[in-house]
């Protein structure tokens, strides 16, 4: 055999030996174990630590919120418990709204402000993963952002199944924040108890009320039917009204100047003072009231004791920031509705509601609510 052929063959053999040994050396032992892949990879992938911890992991520290959630509408077993044999878990768990994994906890980014203050002292040393380490990623830091979280699921939208509760933002709440009326852990529960700091002192309010009693009566029953009774009205609504006068959102020759002279504490105190009184029925034309009753079904969604969904005493609002209507002066109620109609007073919901009412509707409704018992 010629020399150059021998050399060539030798070279091929050397390269082949090198290639085979390299493959032998570089291929992991487990590569063909279960197929054309590294067998060890399966266990490696499975060994990653889960980040979402589930709601049960929140319970030990956040007992109150957890209880609200478990008993509330955001945690139902299922509509009718089973659909075609399949039992569905139902409702968002903690990690859906609180920006994901408990592994990222307690983190200021992951918590709404109010909760954050309570949890900064707690540490979860066993969980060190930081799953959402994305710069600038912050959810639920402000109530405004929390509204966005609610609307992720509840904004009225084509393609959403009808069973899903959905709202038209503009007519449902306007600029109001969801949390003003709803407890996000169980949205059907209404925030009836505001923090103590927001409550005024009726004692202190008595001094301020001396100014008011000239028109609104010493016990909150107005001396003139075109002025509102304040007795038994929700303190929160009175506070909001006075603030609206003070800031100029609502305008009234008398009230604007009086409210301008009140400070924050005065407003709370005087509101607390008048809300303590028991209200009286002012009466109203009986025939008109009977007609108004039929029309009032529309108002009951907000202005009844059962709140948004339930039934209850008509004219007594379930939500403290909305006014009680029962026992209010008919004349005042009518003039208020007309002021919504002509735009001299505005409200995201009431403006559009008032525009659907005719003149006689307004008279009937006013008579109806004036004749209702207010307790």
């Amino acid at each position, binding site marked *: 055999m010629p020399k150059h052929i021998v050399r060539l063959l030798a070279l091929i053999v050397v390269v082949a030996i090198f290639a085979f040994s390299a493959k032998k050396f570089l291929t992991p032992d487990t590569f063909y174990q279960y*197929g054309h892949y590294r067998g060890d990879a*399966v266990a490696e992938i499975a060994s990653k630590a889960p980040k979402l911890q*589930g709601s049960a992991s929140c319970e030990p520290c956040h007992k109150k919120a957890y209880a609200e959630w478990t008993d509330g509408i955001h945690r139902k077993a299922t509509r009718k418990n089973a659909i075609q*044999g399949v039992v*569905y878990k139902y409702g968002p*768990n903690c*990690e859906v709204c609180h920006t994901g994994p408990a592994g990222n906890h307690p983190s200021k980014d992951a918590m709404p402000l109010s909760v954050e203050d309570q949890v900064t002292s707690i540490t979860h040393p066993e969980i060190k993963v930081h799953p959402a380490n994305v710069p600038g990623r912050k959810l639920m830091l402000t109530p405004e952002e929390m509204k966005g979280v609610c609307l992720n699921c509840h904004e009225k939208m*084509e*393609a959403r*199944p009808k069973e899903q509760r959905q709202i038209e933002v503009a007519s449902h709440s306007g600029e109001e924040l969801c949390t003003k009326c709803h407890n996000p852990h169980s949205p059907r529960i209404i925030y009836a108890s505001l923090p103590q700091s927001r409550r005024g002192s009726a004692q202190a309010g008595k001094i301020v009320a001396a100014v008011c009693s000239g028109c609104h009566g010493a016990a909150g029953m107005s001396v003139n039917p075109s002025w509102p009774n304040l007795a038994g009205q929700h303190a929160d609504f009175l506070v909001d009204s006075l603030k609206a006068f003070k800031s100029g959102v609502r305008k009234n020759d008398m009230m604007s100047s009086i409210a301008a002279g009140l400070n924050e504490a005065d407003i709370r105190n005087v509101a607390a003072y008048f809300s303590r009184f028991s209200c009286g029925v002012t009466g109203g034309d009986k025939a008109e009231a009977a007609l108004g009753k039929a029309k009032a079904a529309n108002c009951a969604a907000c202005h009844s004791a059962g709140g948004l969904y339930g039934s209850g005493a008509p004219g007594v609002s379930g939500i403290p920031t909305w006014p009680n209507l029962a026992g209010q002066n008919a004349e005042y109620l009518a003039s208020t509705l007309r002021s919504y109609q002509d735009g001299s007073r505005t409200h995201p919901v009431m403006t559009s509601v008032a525009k659907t009412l005719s003149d006689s509707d307004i008279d009937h409704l006013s008579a109806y609510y004036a004749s209702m018992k207010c307790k």
Partner: protein
Amino acid sequence: MTTQDRKFDQQAVALSRRRFLGLLGKGMVCAGTLVSANSAIGSAEVRGGKRAYQQNDAQYTESLNNPPEIPDYNWNDHQWAMGVDTDRCIGCLRCMEACKMENSVQMDAFHHRTWVERYVYLEGSNTAIVDSQADPKNIENTGSETKFRFDNRYRNVKVDKAFFVPKLCNQCEHPSCVQVCPTGATFKVKDGPVLIDTTYCIGCQYCVQACPYGARSFNEVRGVAEKCNWCYHRITKGLNPACVEVCPTGTRIFGDRNDPESPISLFIKNNHVQVLKPEMGNAPNVFYKGTDKEVV
């Protein structure tokens, strides 16, 4: 005519009829044998049920006798599957967000392991308008690529029919992505999911192109392909995948088909379900209820 020419002529005649037919017959027998043998292999794979894609006898035996060492878990006992009840989906995209958190997927609208599409038939139209969270208008609506939300663009138009469809990797019985992977970086495990061994992925993206469902994406930062693996690290610990865990409406159903009482077994048994693009022959393991003709 020379002798040679005559010889050639005779040969040609002999080939042209008797020999040709004979050869044709033999050829057909051979081809038939090959085809039947091939389909016999294919059907054996299906009938065995348990054998993972492209596994030979020795590897199959090995996976039975010597399964991967995962604590309290044996892949021979499970056959995972997912159901999607599109009638219940509200398009909140929490599944997508949870998936990104759980699996550290890039936090933008374009990289995802699971996503949601919106199908809208305008009044009188026979074709659907489809958009997803990656639609520029939806991104503009949230003002950020890291928040996922559908905008309300159909508020003032008349719509005949509209629905959301969550999508994810179908974990096919015959995965195209595994077939094309040159390095063995992606593979189908015995209990169902198709996994990626990121240490072996060279980032060639053949799999991204091969997938008929567009379920794979490429992570430019890590230089590897990414896909849903049904949170393999969760299901092997007895947890649900992240998207199933957070879904507030019960749209996603997950479970073990070996257990006749599991949610997925009941879901498949009690509903009319279908898979996406059955004509591709991939035999998906994600079962849809309530999808429409245009959903692929």
